[in-house]
């Protein structure tokens, strides 16, 4: 008996393995599946934007009936709570337990800096629709070959506004920016271009992230500046314009796109009129694609989509296009990133393509808050009317990659405040 077992052992093993392989293989043969881990903050300061991000993705999935190029898409949502350590553990859960092929998400730059190394270690592509920390696609990109940014860098848009401010004859500007990486980088980009074309930043004021009472900060603003440039995020912008006007300040308001994002416009009043902000998207973009997007989103979720929703919708579309190129079959992490890199997109926000650091080259819109009727909606509401479109903006602005990367990343003290009074 013993002899028999020993002789047949290998054969039995082989048969068992074959059976296992067949059993494992058959559902895959029936239908390909794409598993996406979606990790964004759904509680805390970021609850509002987090929900919008989720909705953007959901809308695109709905439109495609849950399938990308024939592959069934399964999305697993996780709440990162905007804490890097939690983002890390949640992403690890998504990869190890849920076996996702792609990680998508992150809101504040800190989450991006936490998720990029982790996903890279596990060999999983990381798609970042919102995370805008400059260096992830600049000085540190080489470390993260599987990092794909479908959104923007913080300074990509504010460079454009710096140039625009010069063109408008604005000479002296005060900066009020949230005191964290996004605020520093956005303000730095604005300051550099603005001062290159002859403007002067005369003061920089840094309220903490999440601050909603701007009294002490408004009191510091000089009354004789031409404009105040703001970088406010999440729950901060809603109160700012109101308090600004109440404090009797008259310099015009300009700022990063998040300062007047669509998700905050409904809670603003006429005090926001004329606020000029800059972003790669506006819900008031008058293109058939965008009109359709805004209408569908509003019908489904009851509000006008902001950039948080749009960028996740577009990211899903980008993944879809790459999957089409792969024939609906998961091509492996490296190949997937390569396919993403060569995919050009005709998106809601305009034409998109990647530069060689995996950051989109895209239109940047100068937008002005106006009260008007749009897209056949009955009420006059606040919209970010596009007043200027700057096409195909690179994250390196007009400096060129090599020259730009030689300088340090924008921070609280760089560029130095040469004209501060």
């Amino acid at each position, binding site marked *: 008996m013993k002899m028999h077992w020993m002789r047949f052992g290998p054969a039995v093993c082989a048969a068992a393995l074959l059976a296992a392989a067949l059993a494992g293989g058959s559902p895959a043969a029936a239908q390909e599946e794409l598993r996406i881990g979606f990790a964004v903050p*759904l*509680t805390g300061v970021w609850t509002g934007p987090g929900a919008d991000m989720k909705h953007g993705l959901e809308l695109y999935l709905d439109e495609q009936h849950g399938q990308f190029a024939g592959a069934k898409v399964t999305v697993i949502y*996780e*709440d990162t*709570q905007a*804490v*890097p*350590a*939690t983002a*890390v*553990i*949640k992403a*690890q*859960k998504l990869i*190890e*337990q849920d076996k996702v092929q792609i990680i998508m998400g992150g809101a504040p*730059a*800190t989450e991006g*800096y*936490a998720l990029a*190394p*982790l996903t890279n270690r596990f060999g999983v592509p990381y798609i970042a629709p919102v995370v805008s*920390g400059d*260096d992830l696609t600049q000085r540190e990109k080489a470390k993260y070959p599987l990092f794909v940014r479908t959104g923007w860098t913080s300074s990509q848009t504010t460079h454009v506004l710096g140039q625009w401010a010069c063109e408008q004859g604005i000479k002296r500007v005060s900066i009020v920016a949230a*005191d*964290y*990486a996004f605020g*520093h980088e956005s303000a730095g980009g604005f300051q550099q271009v603005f001062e290159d074309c002859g403007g002067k930043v005369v003061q920089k004021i840094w309220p903490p992230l999440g601050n909603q009472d701007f009294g002490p900060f408004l009191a510091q603003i000089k009354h004789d500046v031409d404009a105040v440039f703001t970088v406010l995020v999440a729950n901060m912008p809603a109160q700012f314009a109101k308090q600004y006007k109440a404090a009797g300040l008259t310099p015009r308001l300009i700022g990063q796109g998040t300062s007047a994002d669509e998700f905050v416009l409904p809670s603003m009043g006429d005090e926001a009129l004329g606020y000029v902000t800059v972003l790669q998207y506006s819900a008031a973009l008058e293109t058939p694609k965008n009109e359709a997007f805004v209408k569908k989103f509003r019908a489904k979720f009851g509000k006008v989509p902001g950039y948080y929703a749009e960028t996740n919708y577009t990211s899903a579309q980008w993944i879809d296009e790459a999957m089409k190129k792969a024939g609906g079959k998961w091509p492996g992490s490296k190949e997937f990133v390569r396919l993403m890199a060569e995919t050009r997109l005709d998106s809601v926000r305009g034409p998109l393509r990647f530069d060689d650091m995996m950051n989109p080259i895209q239109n940047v819109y100068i937008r002005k808050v106006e009260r008007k009727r749009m897209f056949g909606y009955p009420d006059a509401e606040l919209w970010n009317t596009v007043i200027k479109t700057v096409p195909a903006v690179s994250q390196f602005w007009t400096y060129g990659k090599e020259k730009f990367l030689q300088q340090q990343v924008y*921070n*609280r*003290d760089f560029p130095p405040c040469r004209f501060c009074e």
Partner: protein
Amino acid sequence: MTAALLGALAAAVPFVNGFVLLLLTKTLVFGILAMSVDLLIGYTGLASMGQAAYLAVGAYLAAILSVRYGIGLGCDFFWVLAGGLVLGAALAMGFGLLALRAAGVYFLMITLALGMVVWGLAYRWNSLTGGDNGINLPGWPVCGVAFRDPVADYYLVFALFVAVLAGLFILVRSPFGLTLLGIRESETRMRILGYNTWLHKYLVFVIAGACGGMAGVLWAQVNQIVSPQDALLTNSVDALLMVILGGSRTLVGAVIGAAIVLFVREYFSTFVTWWLYVLGAVYILTIYYMPEGILGAVLRLGRRRRAGGVGGLPAAASASPRNPE
């Protein structure tokens, strides 16, 4: 009881998936911090709201040493651990001088403020800490075994946790530990008895800081990222709540509290979006029905059973409320 719990923790490993294992590892690390808080609030009656400061300095030490100098990626990791211990103690020596001038709610406010100072430094001192973006660690140490393996990492943390627990266990039962209880009950009486109560409080404050610093090194190693969020007030408050939830003056209770909070927040939240309500309900129910914490309630039941009485006096006595002082 404690031994059974530890045995279960050690034996649990082969049966859990990677995510749960990671959470257990985090629980034990945070448990060390929570035990240090228990040492202060449970045994000495000092409500510290700044314990995350020590966690943060330990974590930043580990991160900066490994990223800049490549220290702590081999067996020298244990030196970094010792370094975290020393740095935490050193910081507590400085902070203790300031904080221990006051008592009660004033002590709480001072420790809170000092904790925020460390947060501010982490946030603002860009060249050293990387500011808001934090620092990514280059990887796990390799010493005989590669601690990149979650199981190996778990046992490393587990061993250190047991060591700290044993050390603190001995400490609180030593004559010194008993003086701490005395101080908690009535500092005036202890002083009249001839004890230098300030020195005793100072020493225990420094020991707690050292534990926090060491936990910080492990915290950095487990998360592989250090950011100002680690120094945030919420971490200090979490540690305090964990102690209250699990049962103060038990050491192990702090770890039970840590497990409940972390599992609700990071494991339960993978199933439902309303996990915050659950956490809130847990806190409220505990305060209402088990004011002495979960382990405290279990121990009281045990004592009552041993006493053989129904609602016997010993139980009531042991559950007596804190000294109103």
